[in-house]
């Protein structure tokens, strides 16, 4: 059996990769994907804990969170499309997407 800690470490690495991506990637789509990565890290945690504790709650939570993530990405992509239409860019560092400040 794979040691329990491996799951946690995997999840943590995924989470950190996701967080790093959110902080550094300039393309909004990639940032959204990175957020997905972070969510999935949490999902892995849930599944691992659920399995470890023999508790269905973890898996139930994962189902919930996956659907939530899907909805979020759907809305997110729509919002990005809208922004692209108006700003002609999806680069988050562009002046067009940093006009609201201070």
């Amino acid at each position, binding site marked *: 059996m794979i040691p329990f800690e491996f799951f946690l470490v995997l999840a943590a690495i995924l989470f950190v990769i996701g*967080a790093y991506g959110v902080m550094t990637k300039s393309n909004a789509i990639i*940032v959204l994907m990175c957020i997905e990565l972070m969510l999935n890290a949490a999902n892995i945690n849930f599944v691992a804990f659920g399995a470890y504790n023999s508790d269905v709650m973890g898996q139930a939570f994962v189902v919930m969170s996956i659907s939530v993530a899907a909805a979020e990405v759907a809305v997110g992509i729509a919002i990005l499309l809208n922004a692209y239409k108006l700003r002609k860019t999806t680069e988050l560092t562009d002046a067009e997407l*940093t006009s609201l*400040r*201070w």
Partner: protein
Amino acid sequence: MIEYTWLIPFVPMLCFVLIGIFGQKTPEKGGYIAIAGAAISFALSGIIALEYLTGPDYPNVVVDSICWFHIGDLQLNLGYYVDGLTCMMMLFSSFISTLIFVYSVGYMGDQGGRKKRYYAEVSMFLSGMLGLIVSSNFLEMFIFWEVMGLCSYLLIGFWSFRHPEGDAASSNAASAAKKAFLVTRFGDVCLMGGLFVLLGAFGSLDFVDLFNPVNIQNVNPDTLTLGMLLCFGGVIGKSAQFPLHDWLPDAMAGPTTVSSLIHAATMVKAGVYLVARGFPLFVQNPDVMLFVGLIGGFTAFFTATMALNNMNIKRVLAYSTLSQLGYMILSLGAGGYLFALGMDSGNAALMAAGTAGFVAGCFHMMNHAFFKALLFMCSGSVIHAVGTEDMRLMGGLRKQMPITSITMLLGSLSIAGFPFFSGFWSKDLVIEAAFEAGDHNVLFMVLWVLAIVTAFMTAFYMFRMWFMTFMGEKGKNTLHAAEHGHGESPKSMTAPLCILAVFAVVSGFFIMFGLDGMLSFTELPGGFFQVGGGHSEGFEYFSELFTNPYTYLTIVLALVGIYIAYLMYAKKKINPGRFNREGESVLYKVLTKRWGFPDLYNQLSWKLGYGIARGVDYVDRQVVDGTVNGLSGAVVGGGEAVSRVQTGDVHDYSSVVLLGIAVLAVLFIVIAKIMGGI
């Protein structure tokens, strides 16, 4: 009738209100109201004095008071206090004031609408003085004392705007008024301190409580000494003693009638009166009396020097007032010193000698009131005619103004101590008191010498003034006045002159008719003090005086002074310029600069007042306010700075979130470690 004593100050106060409200509509803008008020006060004073002196109570004090209010547990009263001293003071004050008001009708006749202000203010001034005289406690006295201070401010500054002689004179009057008020205020503040000490020590300010020997015994002598010294500070301010004397010459900026009122009937006499009234407390410590005497004697000499070369007729009179006030204080100091020594040693003879000094001081105060009022009013008459105060522009006025010149001559003779004139009697008694005290303290001997020299100087400068004004060649303004037919002043002015001249000549004889008994200061069995009811020497004075060799010394010195003045200014035999290198000598310059006192006052007030004030203002703006503004600036600037973190770049936002999590996690662990939760 004596229970109506309170009316004496009340009537002039009522006149003040009446003139203030209706003055503009009455003839002479309220002048007659003021005269009537003063006359009623005089009449009341006369009736009450007569009733008191002939009544059953005499020589006991008649006192009555009502509760005014409380300070904590201490009760403060309003009331009147009548004894021999009160009678004398209120009589001459109201009498002279009445005459001055009458004189004012002529003197101020051309002042138009301003007369209302004038009469209102002089009425209040008189009210202040009379109130002070009849007060039954120190606080009441202090209030009237300050009311006079206010009135003197207003009256000295009467021409502080729209002066008939132009802007410079207005500025001058304004600054003189301010100086008078501030310098006397300095004394008043000391007096207030003295009242605190007395009130704290005795728990009352009523004279009857303060003069009660039982109470005095219970008070710490050092406290009492401090209190009396502080009170004397008030005297120094009000009676213009050295070193607070310098406001008085400047106060000549007011109308001459005001000078006359301040110098003769009211105001400066208040200080002397305070010493006389507080005598029972002053004599508790001989050193205090020594100090009083020193101040008085030195002032008498010191201020007389400045009269020697002054060219302004009113200024000469002002310095002579200072000098004469010095005499009075000296006399009270010397008498008090002897009395205190006598009390300590139980020596009745010393106490009697002390009483003589007290009588001399009060007596001189009264005589001085008559002749100084006369002199000022005469000078006013002269100024009225020639339109200048500079004696070099006068001269030869004797023919043009016969009444003025003669009455002024009588006044001058009196102040100079010419035998049998009023000043002669009292001044000799003063000098004698100093001499007696000299037996017990060598400092009084020094003061005696100064007093003798001052007597000489007085005779000289008074006659210098008279000769320069009325004799010799006609000056520029004399001629000018003659051209325009400005001769003798109107009757309303000359009549008071004549009346006063009579008093200036004869008031010295009052002492032969029991005045000394009325003013005698005695310690009764049981330690109570009393003014009045003493032994009256009557005509024995006459023989006493003329068997004393020093009397002849003063007479001779006075005559020599008059003669030198005659030679210098009437005959022009001696050129005064010889003595002062035509005004170039150091002494002459120093005298002209009034020994540097105006500069000293200016420097002190400038440095201690405005100098520190500028510093405080700087601190206020830069440090205190600066801190407030700095703090608010820091907050606003901090807001600007922090808002720059909000770059608009969503990466920064997410970085901040993650950084925040890291910081919070560390914080949580640290807190948990500290609290021992983990």
